[in-house]
């Protein structure tokens, strides 16, 4: 995924230091909003499954770990 960032930096040399514009800031806000919503759902699901002594309690954190790779693009 970092490869995308490397390609993007090569294509847009000034981008790393550039101040994000409004559209880009909106993408970041939406990404964070989605992340916090997923985190909340994961916490609730994990707690519920663990309380029921289900081994499936480890599944929601796995989904979250997968989602977080977004930052490693």
């Amino acid at each position, binding site marked *: *995924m*970092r*490869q*995308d*960032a490397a*390609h*993007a*930096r090569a*294509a*847009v040399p000034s*981008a*790393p230091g*550039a101040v*994000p514009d409004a*559209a*880009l800031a*909106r*993408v*970041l806000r*939406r*990404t*964070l909003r*989605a*992340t916090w919503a*997923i*985190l909340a759902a*994961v*916490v609730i699901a*994990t*707690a519920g*499954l*663990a*309380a029921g*002594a*289900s*081994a*499936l*309690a*480890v*599944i*929601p*954190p*796995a*989904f*979250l*770990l*997968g*989602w*977080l*790779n*977004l*930052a*490693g*693009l």
Partner: protein
Amino acid sequence: MLTALTPPGTAAQGRRVWLVSVTAYTVSGLAASVAVGAVLALIGRLSSASLSSSAGLAIAGALAGLAAARELSGGRLPLLQPRRMSSRAWARLGQPRAAILWGLDIGSFFTTRLTFAGAWWLAGVAVLSADIGLAASLFGAYWLGRAAPVWLGPWLVTSATLTPRLAIAWSGLEPRFRFVNAGAALGGTAALLIVFSG
């Protein structure tokens, strides 16, 4: 690969191509991930691993602790991982062929860069579980989380002009995501402790 599969990345080819591509990416990656999870559980079964034993839980806890330490230190500790990235050149094959190859490659877990240390905790839990169904579900869930941003692409990325800078912008979230990654590994271990030591 993700930026190539977001709607702006495939907009020129139409909405149907985007839908077929992300479906192909998700399904091929899911198949690869489920297979990897099953193989890890099989290894655990052959080595008589068990999450219900105190040793198994201790190892899972140690892996979570190491992963958390690595991420909370800002990634200063080295992470055992392949340096390889999935090939962007596959885009030349056209969609959905490229999407299928990206899914199979990234979904294979150990063939490309892992980004965060929590991935090793996940692999460890899959081995320790020695439960093929659980480990396959674990890796299936991991993959679905990894593919989810592609599906949310139409909502997250509304303009094609953003695509070149998207990866850079998202990489700016890394410090916060490291913290969440550590929490996910530690929280998952806490859940395992509750389930298997109770």
